[in-house]
């Protein structure tokens, strides 16, 4: 099979899975488990295969023209270094969350509906990663968001509904901002194709629309990615969702919908004006420090993790918006690492919840002592996220800090160090309660380890945490450096796509 024909499959497979799950998932008992898992595994394999095959393509870019229409007129899907990087991140996390969900979702009533929404969300995320057309990106973004609003409310308890309502309101306002930004861009350039918009903008003098549109996009995508002034929905939504979903929300969704689409548009379409990047750097640094402080004061384990993911988003935004090759590399590497250890931490929280410990730190006292796998994987993830040397988080944070220092932003570098220490404190606090204290076994019956499927995905993610540091060795480094090269090319990306499309 040719590589180029795989690209639309990233959208088609999960969409088909969602359809079949809703249609026949109710009647056949194990259908949802097997089918969703199979589709997630296939997608995971495809994303890695397509990444390897991309090496042999000249220019490392593939453009799939839907219906054979040439880009400025037709819709195209773009598969380049950055898209393939995001696809691997998304599909890997989605596969492991699907494995985990087999056992975890037993306690909810309607698994078929869960798998339908789950597949729809994956469809939206993959679509955002491959979209080469700004309005299509918006449509996929909405598919993923709507599915995630529904998934947050999946338990239909009071807290979950409230969190979902807040999230849905914030998300819809954000989408309106993004859509009106798209409308202004269309009015100015008369085209919706991202490459073509970049081309037209570079011809036009007096582009008064750019500052206005960038502000709209920063507000809209900032709301989706939960940077500090826009973060209010995130702790509620992440702590209320079922564990595999909060793993995906925090590990993948906020990065794909927020960070990826923001920087794709800022760098490749608008051309990354320095003052907006400066503003984003400031927001990133503020997120790191404030989220670190807020996460210290939490008593709910998942809420603590949610605040720390705001901080980690801060690192990613800070790294990428430095705009230097090293900064972008560090930001993307941290994005990859965060999509490994944060889902792992959320899955740990889910495992403790599953064993009967609940989500509150006080109630879960001592539950971890009888769960060796959860204990060890949680230790690895906690050390990795707070940047302790042999683990992957250390390298990415080090790169970001060095990149800050290179551009003489010592204040931001200091913020990054402080944020790292605060994260370590918060997670060690959680570990002290859950894994080190004695259990008061009188009140609650302590069960043993969780089922094997849940253990499998946790152990897999923990080993990824250990191994991800090896991505820095030259042969494997291409994986990330190709992705950062795409952002560095800036608006010349337009010409590259146009040429690739005519091939």
């Amino acid at each position, binding site marked *: 099979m040719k590589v180029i024909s795989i690209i639309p499959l990233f959208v088609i497979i999960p969409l088909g899975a969602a359809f079949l799950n809703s249609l026949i998932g109710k009647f056949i008992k194990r259908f949802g488990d097997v089918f969703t898992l199979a589709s997630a595994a296939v997608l995971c394999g495809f994303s890695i295969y397509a990444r390897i095959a991309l090496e042999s393509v000249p220019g490392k870019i593939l453009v799939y023209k839907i219906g054979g229409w040439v880009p400025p007129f037709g819709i195209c899907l773009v598969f380049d270094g950055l898209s393939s990087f995001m696809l691997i991140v998304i599909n890997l996390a989605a596969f492991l969350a699907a494995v985990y969900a087999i056992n975890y979702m037993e306690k909810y009533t309607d698994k078929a509906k869960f798998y339908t929404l789950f597949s729809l969300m994956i469809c939206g995320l993959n679509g955002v990663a491959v979209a080469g057309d700004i309005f299509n990106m918006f449509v996929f973004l909405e598919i993923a968001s*709507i599915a995630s609003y529904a998934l947050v409310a999946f338990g239909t*308890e009071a807290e979950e509904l409230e969190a979902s*309502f807040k999230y849905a309101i914030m998300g819809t306002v954000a989408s*309106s901002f993004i859509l009106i930004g798209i409308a202004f861009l*269309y*009015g100015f350039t008369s085209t919706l194709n991202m490459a073509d918009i970049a081309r037209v903008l570079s011809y036009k003098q007096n582009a008064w629309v750019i500052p206005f549109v960038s502000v709209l996009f920063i507000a809209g995508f900032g709301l989706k990615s939960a940077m500090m002034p826009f973060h209010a929905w995130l702790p*509620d939504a992440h702590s209320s969702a079922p564990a595999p979903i909060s793993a995906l929300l925090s590990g993948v969704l906020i990065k794909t919908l927020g960070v990826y689409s923001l920087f794709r548009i800022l760098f490749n379409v608008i051309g990354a004006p320095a003052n907006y990047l400066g503003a984003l750097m400031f927001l990133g640094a503020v997120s790191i420090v404030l989220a670190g402080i807020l996460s210290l004061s939490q008593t709910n384990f998942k809420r603590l993790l949610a605040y720390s993911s705001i901080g980690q988003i801060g690192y990613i935004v800070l790294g990428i918006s430095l705009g230097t090759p090293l900064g972008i590399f560090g930001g993307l590497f941290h994005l990859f690492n965060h999509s490994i250890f944060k889902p792992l931490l959320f899955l740990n929280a889910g495992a403790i919840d599953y064993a009967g410990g609940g989500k509150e730190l006080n109630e879960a006292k001592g539950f971890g002592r009888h769960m060796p796998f959860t204990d060890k994987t949680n230790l690895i993830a906690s050390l990795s996220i707070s940047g302790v040397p042999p683990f992957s988080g250390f390298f990415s944070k080090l790169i970001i800090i060095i990149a800050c220092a290179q551009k003489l932003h010592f204040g931001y570098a200091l913020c990054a160090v402080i944020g790292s220490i605060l994260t370590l404190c918060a997670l060690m606090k959680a570990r002290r309660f859950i894994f080190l204290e004695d259990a008061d076994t009188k009140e609650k019956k302590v069960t043993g380890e969780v089922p094997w499927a849940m253990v499998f995905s946790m152990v897999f993610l923990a080993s990824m945490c250990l191994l991800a540091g090896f991505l820095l060795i030259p042969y494997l480094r291409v994986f990330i450096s190709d992705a950062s090269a795409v952002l560095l090319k800036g608006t010349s990306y337009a010409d590259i796509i146009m040429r690739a499309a005519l091939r």
Partner: protein
Amino acid sequence: MILFCIGLYGVLRKRNIVKIIIGLAIMGYSVNLFLVLLGYRFHGRAPIDSHDQAILNMVDPIPQAVVATAIVIGMAVMALLTGISIRLYEKYGTFDITKIRKLKG
């Protein structure tokens, strides 16, 4: 634009859940209206290509396609939001968002 601001005001300022949803709806409509007006030309006609008519003075068809999609998305969001608000009313017995606050911190 004015409609957009009215909608945003509704979302930010009102305390009743239903009014917030109406505010969101107004925002959505304003964006759609804006998009349609972008493609409008004076004395334009529908962009349908046929043999006996010259391609002259048509309105821009792309915003119309875009708006049709945006309306569908808006409908899905509205349906989901009203569904959630009905369930919220069942759980809390009120539509006032200042009273719906179990999640804090």
